[in-house]
Structure formats: C-alpha cells, structure tokens
C-alpha cells in the first residue's frame, strides 16, 4: 500500500505544469499589467522556434520580445496597440491565431466546409439507398409475366 502511495505521488509530481520561460526579473511590478503581458505573449509566436509562444520559449529573441511587450504595456499601450507593434515588424506569422481575412478563409472555414460537403454527400447517399430499399422499383411487364408463371406453376 505504501509502495502504491509512493508511486502515485511520483506520478502526480510529473503532472505539474511545465515551467514557463518567463524569468522573475522580466515581470512587471503591476500584477494587472503583468497578467495582460502574459496573456498577449501566449498568443505571439517565437520566430526562432516557430511552434512555441514567446511565453514558452527560452530563445533570446523571445526574451527580448517579452521585455519589449512589457515596455509597451507599461508605456500605456492597449493590448491591440502592443500586438500591432510586433505584427508591424514580424508580420501576421507572429500571431499564433492567424487573423480572419480573405487569404486565410480556406484555413478558417475549410474544415467546416469540408465537413458540410462530406455530411451532405453522406446524407444524399444514405437517403438514396434507403429509398430504393423501402420502395423497390415497380415490376416491368416482363418481370410481372415471369412472376405470374412462377406463381402459376406452384399452385
């Protein structure tokens, strides 16, 4: 029993959230501003690692961008302004969530459109099959004649 408790404790210990890359000396004194900075930096891509946010990344550039972001917020930028400041330099790619615009319509609506097309074709297919199963086509004259002869033979 004690062994299993120990094992459980070890397993739970590995479930702790991963340490963030944000260093204590980067943080702003004002907790409200710091919270905004954290929220924004989770949405910004680290250009060096490209699949991490600057909040997660240990790259030098990510560190610089975190500091820059905090400077902008401390200087009175709104969230929008601070994000636009970085997008102006690095482009939309820096946003982990790409903006909805004609160039990204396929990205945003493609999967839903594909689902609708697939669901519609499936519905049409199933519907057609059910109809043929439920109401079979009426017998042709030839079939009727054969059926009649078969029935006559038996009785």
């Amino acid at each position, binding site marked *: 029993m004690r062994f299993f408790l120990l094992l459980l404790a070890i397993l739970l210990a590995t479930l702790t959230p991963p340490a963030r890359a944000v260093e204590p000396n980067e943080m702003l004194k004002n907790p409200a501003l710091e919270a905004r900075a954290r929220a924004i930096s989770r949405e910004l891509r680290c*250009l060096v690692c*490209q699949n991490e946010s600057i909040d997660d990344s240990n790259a030098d*550039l990510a560190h*610089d*961008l975190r500091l820059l972001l905090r400077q902008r917020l401390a200087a009175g930028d709104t969230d929008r302004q601070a994000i636009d400041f970085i997008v*102006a*330099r*690095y*482009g939309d*790619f820096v946003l982990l969530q790409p903006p909805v615009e004609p160039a990204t319509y396929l990205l945003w609506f493609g999967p839903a459109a594909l689902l609708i097309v697939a669901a519609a074709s499936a519905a049409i297919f199933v519907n057609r099959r059910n109809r043929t199963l439920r109401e079979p086509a009426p017998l042709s004259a030839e079939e009727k004649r054969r059926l009649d002869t078969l029935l006559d033979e038996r009785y």
Partner: protein
Amino acid sequence: MRRFLYIVPLALFIALVIYFFVAMRGGYDPSTLPSAMIGKPVPTFDLPGPLVPPSYAGPRVKLGFSNRDLLGHVVLVNFFASWCIPCRVEHPVLMGLGPAADVPVVGIAYKDKSQDAVGFLNEYGNPYVAVAMDEGGRTGIDFGVYGVPETYLIDKHGIIRLRYVGPLTAEVVAREILPAVRTLQQSP
C-alpha cells in the same frame, strides 16, 4: 456525372503529388519567413560605431550610422555577429561583394560586444563601408530580424525592397541580390 465522380480521388492525389514536388524544389526552406517590412521605409535608428575602429588594411570605415545615412543610394544592410557561425560561412561572399558588385554593404553587429565585433572583422577582414553596434538588438527587432545573418536591400528612397535570411551564397547573390540591385540602381 457518375464517371466523373470516380476520377475525383485520382485527381486530388495527382494535385497533392504536384504540390509536394513543387514544395520540395531546391533552395526552398519553409522555415524562412516572409518579411513584413518589404515596401516599408527603413526603421528609424541611430546606432553608435564600435568603441575601437577595426584595424584591418583597407579604406576607412564609417563608425556608426543612422537610417538617414542610407538615403540616396542602393545599399545592402547586413546583420551579423561575432558569435554567429553562419556569418563566418557568409563572410567570404560579402568580402567579394563590395567593390566588385558596386553596391555598398553596411554592417550592423546584432547583440554583439564592440571588441568582439571588431575582433571578428580584424580576423576575417571587413566587407562593410560602415559598421554600427546594435548591442541591445532593438534595431534588429525594428527590422524584423529573427536570426543572424540577415541581409536587407534598401533602395535610394530608403525603402526595404528585399530581405534574405541566412548566409548569403555566391549563387543567391548572383541569382537574387545583384539583379535586384541593378534594377533599383537604374530606377530613379
């Protein structure tokens, strides 16, 4: 109509094969990002030169420059650093570029220390007509630099026309950089 539907999967497959084939073409690196600064003016900056001038044999270098100094001629801005290994790979290409190509190259040492940058230039030679220090990396961020070396082609009016990420090679210079330089030099 029925016949046509059967061909759809095959058509999709062929389209995918063509896409993969094109995406694998030589010299294409999907991790290279397009620059958001193309067509925009060079960001405002005024950077100091290294504390000690490089002591190589050659014409005197301008130490430190600002964005205004770039106006009036087509110029290449090269971000480099003494700690950057690809910069050493690129260096001979830059050395051959300046006088022969008739386009001035200015160097910005990105997140580098003055004496390290000068040491690098003294050891390998100096390809730049002007050298500036961007120790904090802020000017780099304003240019949209995400890794050295990066090279920016600026036109006569101070507009960024081209960005190349990674070490320049003789082939890239001949194929991309020089034709663009010539076109810009001829335009008013």
